[in-house]
């Protein structure tokens, strides 16, 4: 059996470009992606070093079960790997490409992609943010004086608040970037 390794890495919702680059670099270094488990444990298998482009698509329901989806990618030379939280992972060797190839060939479909991510992943986060994170952060501020447990909670919520804000801003910037490119 080929040698395997695990790496833990977190990419936020909109960092799919960084994730794609990360996977491509791993493959160049002789590690091909085999599996991904929550929250971000990447399982790689030793392989020949090769320049392989990795791409992510997003459909809320996940499309691995859709034979026609997998088949179309296969026909176009893309190997479908698996679905993870609605994201479908595919890859294609640069040697098999005609010029630069991506799974999206126009800006409209890239915007459609990020809109699907927005609806599927970001909208639930926005609900959490307004219904839990903000009220809890405010509540903990008013309890700050009382005891250390509340102080800890306050810090936890403040960190969550910051992470959420970071994700929202990153998403907004990415969306603007795509819109401007169109």
């Amino acid at each position: 059996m080929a040698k395997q390794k695990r790496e833990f890495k977190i990419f936020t919702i909109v960092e799919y470009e960084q994730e794609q680059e990360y996977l491509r670099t791993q493959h160049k270094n002789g590690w091909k992606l085999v599996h991904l488990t929550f929250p971000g444990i990447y399982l790689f298998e030793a392989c020949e070093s090769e320049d392989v482009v990795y791409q992510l698509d997003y459909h809320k329901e996940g499309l691995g079960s859709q034979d026609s989806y997998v088949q179309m990618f296969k026909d176009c030379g893309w190997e479908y790997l698996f679905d993870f939280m609605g994201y479908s992972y595919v890859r294609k060797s640069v040697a098999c490409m005609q010029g630069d190839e991506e799974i999206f060939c126009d800006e409209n479909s890239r915007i459609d992609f990020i809109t699907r991510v927005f609806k599927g992943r970001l909208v639930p986060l926005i609900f959490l943010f307004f219904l839990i994170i903000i009220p809890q952060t405010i509540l903990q501020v008013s309890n700050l004086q009382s005891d250390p447990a509340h102080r800890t909670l306050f810090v936890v919520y403040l960190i969550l608040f910051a992470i959420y804000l970071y994700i929202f801003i990153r998403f907004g910037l990415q969306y603007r970037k795509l819109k401007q490119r169109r």
Partner: protein
Amino acid sequence: MDAHIRKVYVPMTETGFYILLCLQQEMHGYSIVQKVKELTDSEILLSPGTMYGSLSKMEKDGLICFVREEEKRKIYKITSLGLEVLNKEQERIARLYRTMKEVQ
């Protein structure tokens, strides 16, 4: 043709235009990719993500319809609404071309 269709498809993307153009005959996604490649001397290479997204969207909006599945490939064809949109787009492109020639 309602406001939504007009907003999204008039004018339409190059990908959308080629899909409708090809689907005047029954075809599956990958055969559209091949056909467009052939028609444009490999100038335009449609990608599977774009293709899948466009086909799903157009099917939802009633511009094309699913006919049957063959060897895991979904075959579609254009609807009367799709044909209406395609004709409108062809007229627009023809006008654009005429104007361009006149100005030159």
